[in-house]
């Protein structure tokens, strides 16, 4: 099969009719205010630990992948690996440079993950389209293996999962669920704001040009190589921050096994179901991916009672989850974010 442009095949260009910009700023501010002020009023520890924190972190991971894949059209199955690099880098920074404040360690850990992304992204200069999953998968497996194999990264801990150091900023302890939520929320807000600026800058426009037609972009003078590499760097940096948060704010341990291929698939699901090339889509997709299994668990407990054994319940969940994914892919080609935009327009008219 000959194709005009493999990048365009992968991520078809499309236009979403969003609400006007001031309204979106207002909406963003309302959501943020709700998350900062409203949530702590009602949330319990269960909500923080099982729902809000993983939702925010996976949204961030999805956002990172969205920069690389949704905006720049470079397919990547290395999200888990970038998250692992971020987690281990932050762990080692906290361990070996105790004077460094937590936010700086987080940011540096993210940047180190970004460098890993840059290296893994190098083959994208020559390999295109779907074949790109090869180098990112190679990175995924190699990095996972390295962290399990080389003792230095985990400070020669006897077990493969190591407990995270205490979280504190300016002497304030953040290890309570509410504290970890605050840390996660503020990191996610800052990174999202930076990403928001980035995709509207010249860099972001170059990314989209490469995605929609690489050859055409090269012809009109878009620096294709720089666009691809910067997309890998930016995406992996965001994923790295997400990985560090996953280890420190969510799990409380640093464990390479929690950043396996399934995590990469999860991030991929998040952006495809949420909406490729849409920052908001990452959050919607994450809500779907994180909440569906929880909902299914509660639902199966309510419907079936405790009589059925856990293996069967998890099999039923697997089937339903898979079927939901397929039906969303069929019904909503541009992701759930398109559904919400349509609803919004119907409300306004």
């Amino acid at each position, binding site marked *: 099969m*000959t194709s005009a442009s493999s990048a365009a095949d992968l991520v078809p260009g499309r236009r979403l009719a969003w609400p006007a910009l001031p309204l979106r700023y207002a909406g963003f501010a309302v959501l943020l205010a709700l998350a900062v002020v409203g949530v702590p009023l009602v949330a319990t520890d269960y909500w923080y630990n099982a729902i809000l924190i993983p939702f925010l972190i996976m949204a961030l991971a999805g956002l990172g992948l969205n920069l690389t894949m949704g905006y720049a059209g470079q397919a990547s199955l290395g999200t888990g690996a970038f998250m692992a690099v971020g987690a281990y880098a932050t762990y080692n920074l906290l361990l070996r440079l105790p004077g460094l404040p937590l936010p700086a360690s987080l940011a540096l850990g993210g940047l180190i993950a970004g460098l890993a992304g840059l290296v893994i992204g190098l*083959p994208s200069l020559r390999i295109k389209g779907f074949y790109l999953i090869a180098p990112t*998968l190679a990175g995924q497996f*190699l990095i*996972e293996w390295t962290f399990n*194999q080389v003792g230095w990264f985990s400070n020669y801990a006897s077990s493969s999962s190591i407990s995270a150091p205490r979280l504190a900023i300016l002497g304030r302890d953040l290890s309570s669920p509410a504290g970890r939520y605050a840390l996660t929320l503020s990191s996610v807000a800052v990174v999202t704001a930076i990403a928001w600026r980035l995709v509207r800058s010249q860099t972001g426009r170059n990314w989209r040009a490469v995605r929609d037609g690489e050859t*055409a972009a090269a012809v009109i003078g878009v620096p294709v190589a720089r666009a691809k590499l910067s997309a890998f760097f930016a995406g992996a940096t965001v994923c790295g921050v997400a990985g560090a948060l996953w280890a420190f704010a969510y799990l409380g341990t640093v464990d390479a096994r929690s950043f396996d291929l399934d995590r990469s698939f999860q991030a991929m699901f998040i952006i495809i179901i949420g909406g490729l090339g849409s920052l908001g889509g990452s959050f919607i997709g994450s809500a779907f991916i994180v909440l569906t299994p929880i909902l299914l668990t509660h639902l199966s407990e309510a419907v079936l009672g405790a009589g059925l054994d856990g293996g069967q319940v998890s099999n039923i969940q697997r089937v339903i989850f*898979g079927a939901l994914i397929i039906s969303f892919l069929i019904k909503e080609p541009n992701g759930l974010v398109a559904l919400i935009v349509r609803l919004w327009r119907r409300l306004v008219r």
Partner: protein
Amino acid sequence: MSFFLETLAGGLLAGVMYALVAIGFVLIYKASGVFNYAQGAMVLCAALTFVTLTERDLPFWLAGLVTLAIMVTLAVAVERVLLRPLVNRSQMTLFMATLGLSYVIEGIAQLLMGASVHELDLGIPDLPVALGPIQLSRFDLVAAASAGALVIALSLFFERTRIGVALRAVADDPQAALSIGIRLPVLWATVWAVAGFVALVAGLLWGARQGVQFSLTFVVLKALPVLIIGGFTSIAGAIVGGLIVGAADALAEIYLGPLLGGSVSTWFAYLLAVAFLLVRPAGLFGERAIERV
């Protein structure tokens, strides 16, 4: 030296088995442009069905027929429910859809037939056979021979029959193929059914070797570098890629593994695949996409 040869030969034999799984991918990719991640789930589903039936004292041939019928039904269902609504969508979307499909197949298969490990005895004794200076497992030889025979049969089928010609037409240009009257839905269902048959053979051979269990689905991750090296669209590529990956994997495990202090088999094949891609960006035998503005 004979140890090196033995490792190499063992790797090549394993490579034929990888190729067998990879061919299932190639068939589907050629016909529908889908990288079918659910191939691993299909291998598991076929093996699990077969073993459950034989444990109910069905003779081998009947169990094989029933399993085949189930795989054909699955193929028709996939065409209806998955491929038809997703026609003309991006490759990544289709890939994700097959990931969802693999969840569904794995879930249903284990729901109905349990998740315990089943022994599968095909009646081939696993005795060492001396071939000149080296010793090989008889089971591996028989498995590789049957895989090889299947590969040749499939190549002939797709080279000589009308369906094969239609498949190549669709792979070349789906719209032109449609306009000269090739019925795409029928072709898709046929190809998925053939892929189901390949999954059955692969499931039996792999299942007899390592037990019928969930980890059978991971043969996908072994077949992926094979495909990438060979090119997504070439049956010959799948065979050559399988042999390369099998041999390189076995040798790396023996000679490189101890140097690095652990098993390298999770990632070595992928690194190899990247090296091949850097030289040939569409695999050894894959068709290069022509880039237009």
